[in-house]
């Protein structure tokens, strides 16, 4: 990846974060924290990694993405909008009555959403089913799913991991966002899921640990995913919840709360400054 490409991704990730703030502010609700922690990953997936076409969101041969941690819909929606699946201007209608941007991902109404999710633990099973189907159909389709570290307390997640390993789904990539926080507090205090790496290895996964804000790490991890044969891949990414907005950074309060008007101005001001800096560095 060239420096130019990396900077383009960083610019895009900043725009994705701005969309998260725009949409949750417009909704007066929603989940900015986990959307921001995964913003770099969303950006990389939809702008570098996945074979998708915004002009043809249902293209048969496309790669699939399932947002198992569905509450971070603002992050996914902003990524899709910035990638051209639908107008960025629609983001503030998130959660509004009659808006197609439902509070949690809706595959029926939102272009580019491959599966309706929101009830934690189910998306990963759906993704595993997609990967198994692609194998059965002998189609070259990779399936990516993003989970939260709080989410993996759901028993179904481990059923899905057993299934993916049992059927040797090497086209299946489970990305776990280890931001360390969930609604009720720190994940290690609410229900400790660590050590995730050992668990995934024991479940038969090709385990890759990365910095979830490093595009270089992502490039290497996805290359390793595609090179791996006979077993599914788990990318464990350490992230900072709320990254990009000073007062949301590592704050459990911002898991599921929207910025008010004053907070919105502060957040957008910070992100605009970051964007200006990135764009200046681009020249």
């Amino acid at each position, binding site marked *: 990846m060239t420096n130019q490409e990396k900077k383009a991704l960083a610019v895009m990730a900043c725009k994705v974060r701005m969309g998260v703030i725009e949409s949750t502010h417009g909704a007066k609700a929603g989940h900015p924290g986990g959307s921001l922690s995964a913003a770099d990953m969303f950006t990389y997936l939809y702008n570098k990694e996945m074979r998708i076409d915004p002009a043809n969101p249902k293209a048969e041969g496309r790669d699939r993405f399932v947002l198992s941690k569905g509450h971070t819909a603002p992050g996914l929606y902003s990524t899709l909008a910035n990638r051209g699946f639908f107008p960025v201007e629609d983001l503030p209608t998130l959660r509004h009555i009659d808006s197609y941007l439902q509070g949690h991902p809706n595959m029926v109404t939102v272009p580019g959403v491959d599966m309706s999710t929101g009830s934690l633990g*189910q998306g990963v099973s*759906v993704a595993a089913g*997609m990967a198994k189907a692609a194998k059965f159909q002998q189609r070259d*389709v990779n399936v990516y799913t993003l989970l939260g570290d709080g989410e993996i307390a759901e028993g*179904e997640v481990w059923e899905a991991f057993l299934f993916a390993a049992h059927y040797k789904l090497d086209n299946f990539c489970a990305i776990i966002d280890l931001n360390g926080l969930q609604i009720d507090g720190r994940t290690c205090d609410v229900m400790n899921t660590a050590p995730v790496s050992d668990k995934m290895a024991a479940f038969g996964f090709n385990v890759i640990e990365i910095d979830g804000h490093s595009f270089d790490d992502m490039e290497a991890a996805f290359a390793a995913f595609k090179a791996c044969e006979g077993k599914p891949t788990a990318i464990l990414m350490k992230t900072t919840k709320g990254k990009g907005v000073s007062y949301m950074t590592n704050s459990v309060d911002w898991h599921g709360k929207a910025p008010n008007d004053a907070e919105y101005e502060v957040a957008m001001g910070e992100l605009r400054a970051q964007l200006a800096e990135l764009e200046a560095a681009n020249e």
Partner: protein
Amino acid sequence: MSEIKKVATRESYGKALVELGKEHEDVVVLDADLAAATKTSTFRKAFPERHFDCGIAECNMIAAAAGMSTMGLVPFASSFAMFAAGRAFEQVRNSIGYPQLNVKIGATHGGISVGEDGASHQCCEDFALMRSIPGMVVLCPSDDVEARAAVKAAYYHQGPVYLRFGRLAIPVFHDEETFKFEIGKGEQLTEGSDIAIIATGLMVDEARKAAEALKAEGIAARVINICTIKPLDEEIILKAAKECGKVITCEEHSIIGGLGEAVAALLAEKHPTIMRRIGVNDEFGHSGPAWDLLKQFGLSAENIANVAREMLK
């Protein structure tokens, strides 16, 4: 009199899957370590590459089936009714129902006729659970002929379908040569306008027998087979209510949330009619031979006839 042929509708399910599998390459079957009991083993034998065992993990199986359907396959996901509709209810609701995915749920071992396994496995709540999901079609065939037809109709229906089959071998009364099945259509089995007996599943044959006994006493009962519990055939039920004036519903399910309540709700709103619900009376089942249990819980021709006589007094 020749011996009446008896077949469990789970057997019919396995056979129909094989027939569908021969015709359609997109048919795949998922099971959760119960293939021998649900009879998807019949399909597995014919098409091993299209049968995916998911292990004892029904929630994952249901959601994985949802994922497969988004890839253009037509998955039939199978387990006992208790686990397919009960344990995995929320997966059915959120991962199949809400996104309107084309998944068929083949649930066997419905009702108390599971028998010796006892209450933990005797699902009498599946109609209630599945009916409550928007867009879900709920089918409960009454014999082998109808069960095989229902499986095929479910394949051709675009959208989620819940099919309930039984463990117990039950009489086959439909004539395969002439039988026509359509989702959403009830079937009138006898003429009569003294009382209407509306039944589903294995209770349909009991209702037929009850009507025969009543006929000997000069009572003409109209027996209606309702395989499609949702969407309900309102026309045939309203007509029966208007022409008979009294209605009995019969189902191997709790009287709460099943066929009886569906009929009661329809009649209460459109044609209030005196009615009685025969079903499991808000209690758990227990172990025992299936036919003995059915008798004990009042799910028998004798009880249906008695209720009819009582209502006609």
